[in-house]
């Protein structure tokens, strides 16, 4: 087991593709770390450099402070679980799991003991004599994880290990992987494009985009303190609404502006962005922080963002519904426990309490103001008042 440091890591593919741009990360010994980003963000390239399947163009990788980026995967003693299809198809599960030990010329007693250990750990004792083609996708991935763990690696790398499984199985393996990592204490890095996987499994994670590191922190930090609009939109159960309010004018008790030509009202607290001479604001709010009101509903008594629009579509999620409201050319999603059925094209009002508003720089997209952590509680209070 080891701590891992990525120091000014760069990767070029050919002269024109700068896949990984100056990435600096320190991963503590025993930590479960996530690399999150959309496809093409460079997260897999980082992982492949960690494992030793790619060489960094510039920068260094250190395990416990010792540079390893010129060493082979074997010398680093890293293990990797691939997305899918990486079991040796002509071997049984037992032969697959024991292969790393066999090429290291371990004694047959050691092999038998270690295989039995990981098989118990991953609950695959009954599968040991099956070939890959005789196992389901979930079973294959368990065997792949067993093969990675059988030789006590310094670092366990997981490349979207459960992305190809069905929803229920994925949820179960998420929990299992997390417990397993905690129990073994192996430093682990998982690459995923799924924010839920990243949030639920890891201790800390890094969000990447276009080869650049956007933010490193705990799930809570990244969810509540996103550094920019991209992280805010990418990270979370539902994507954050980010929309533009322009032609903003200070009206004394509030700020009047327009959303795609439609009049909108902003709370006075956002005056700071007007103070630096801007007339345009980039506003963010998580769907759970947005209320959708009918014309007949009483307006909430607190300050907040208000605008009118039409229902674009509603999606029933069982205990809540996702209502997408179209305001001129922009759309805002609201996740609401409101049980009322909204009609498509029905005129509605959108209300976002001041506390739930994020403010981004309209040029750089950097976050200028975070929503309050207690925004959710406040929203619940407002809802009970309105009802």
């Amino acid at each position, binding site marked *: 087991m080891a701590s891992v440091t990525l120091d000014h890591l760069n990767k070029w593919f050919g002269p024109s593709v700068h896949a990984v741009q100056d990435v600096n990360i320190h991963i503590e010994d025993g930590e479960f770390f996530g690399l999150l980003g959309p496809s093409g963000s460079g997260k897999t390239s980082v992982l492949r450099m960690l494992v030793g399947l790619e060489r960094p163009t510039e920068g260094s990788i250190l395990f416990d402070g010792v540079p390893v980026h010129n060493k082979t995967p*074997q010398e680093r003693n890293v293990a990797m679980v691939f997305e899918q*299809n*990486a*079991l*040796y198809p002509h071997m049984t599960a037992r032969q697959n799991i024991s292969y790393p030990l066999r*090429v290291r010329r371990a004694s047959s007693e050691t092999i038998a003991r270690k295989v039995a250990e990981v098989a118990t750990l991953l609950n695959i004792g009954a599968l040991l004599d099956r070939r890959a*083609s005789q196992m389901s996708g979930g*079973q*294959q991935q368990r065997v792949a994880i067993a093969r990675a763990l059988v030789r006590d690696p310094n670092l366990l790398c997981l490349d979207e290990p459960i992305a190809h499984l*069905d929803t229920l199985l994925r949820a179960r393996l998420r929990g299992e992987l997390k417990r397993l990592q905690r129990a073994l204490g192996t430093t682990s890095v998982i690459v995923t494009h799924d924010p839920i996987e990243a949030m639920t499994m890891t201790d800390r994670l890094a969000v990447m985009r276009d080869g650049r590191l956007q933010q490193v922190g705990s799930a809570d930090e990244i969810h509540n303190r996103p550094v920019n609009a991209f992280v805010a939109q990418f990270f979370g159960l539902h994507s954050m609404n980010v929309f533009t309010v322009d032609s903003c004018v200070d009206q004394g008790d509030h700020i009047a502006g327009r959303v795609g030509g439609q009049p909108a009202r902003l709370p006075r607290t956002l005056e700071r962005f007007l103070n630096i001479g801007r007339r345009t604001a980039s506003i963010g709010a998580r769907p759970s922080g947005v209320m959708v009101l009918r014309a007949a509903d009483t307006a909430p008594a607190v300050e907040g963002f208000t605008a009118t629009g039409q229902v674009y579509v509603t999606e029933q999620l069982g205990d809540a519904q996702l209502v997408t409201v179209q305001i001129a050319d922009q759309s805002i999603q609201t996740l609401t426990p409101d049980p009322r059925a909204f009609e498509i094209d029905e005129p509605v009002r959108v209300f976002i309490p001041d506390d739930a508003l994020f403010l981004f720089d309209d040029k750089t997209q950097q976050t200028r103001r975070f929503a309050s952590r207690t925004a959710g509680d406040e929203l619940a209070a407002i809802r009970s008042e309105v009802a």
Partner: protein
Amino acid sequence: MADLTIGYGKSSRWGRKPRRDDGVTERGTLLLLGPALLFLAVFAIWPFCYLIYASFTSYQMAIPVPIHWVGLGNFQVLVKTTRFWHSLGVTAAFALVSVPLQLLIGLCIALLLNAVTRGREVYASLLLTPMMLAPIVVGFAWELFLNPIYGPLNALLKGIGLSPPAWAQSPVWALPTLVAVDIWQWTPLVMVILLAGLRSIPPRVYEAAKVDGSSAVQTFFNIVAPMLLPYFAVAFVLRFIDSFKVFDIIYILTRGGPGTITQNLAYYTYDLGFGRFQFGRSGALSIIQLLLLTIGTMLIIKLVAKRNVPTAAVAGPAANAKEGA
């Protein structure tokens, strides 16, 4: 709906069997297959049966004596001649020397080509040329190339001070020369089959092996070779069967000579049947070859089937990914 009912009623009125989903009656099936079956019966099944019959008779074409049944007589005479055993040896040289060498060289070229990333298709197509040429062209090209007087090979060898033999006419070198030409012509087929096998191994398998600490040699013997085995078996069987049928290059380059040194079983069969018109004996020789070929092929298949290796293509989890873990 109405149309369908009428159509169905019509066919039942005519007493036909009910139509299948694709609208073809069983009688229709027979009618469509008929010409092909008839062709096979006339040009393949009947001659084959006649061959078996002839091999038990004294049938000699062009000699007006009555044909009589000799039982296993033809076979007994054949196995007592040294010429039979010599031809068997020549056939064995193709089946047991040329074919294994083709497999070995084909494997090496396929491994090299698989490592090439740019222009693999171009190299592969170029290397396939010998296989695509007509056998007669191959024969004449080699005859010219090896000609002791005009041929470039001997000119070159003399140029560097050697005294080369007259390859195709030399009692020592004629058979090795034919084996070399056979290897030259058919190694590309082996190469293309094995290359397809190598391409079917997912890159992730190689990467997994690298991460698992497997050296290049270990990866080849433990992972690549077993996954390549089914392709290897296909190439082996195809080439093994063909090795019994080598005829054209012998006919053009040596005519079975000098003497009968380069006559294999196929050439001997031809010589018996069309040179001496001994159809009974020639038929018996064909039957012997068929038996040897069948036994040999079954041995190869049995050898591979015992390992029971699934191909890389069927090992993907996509088909059954939905089951529970």
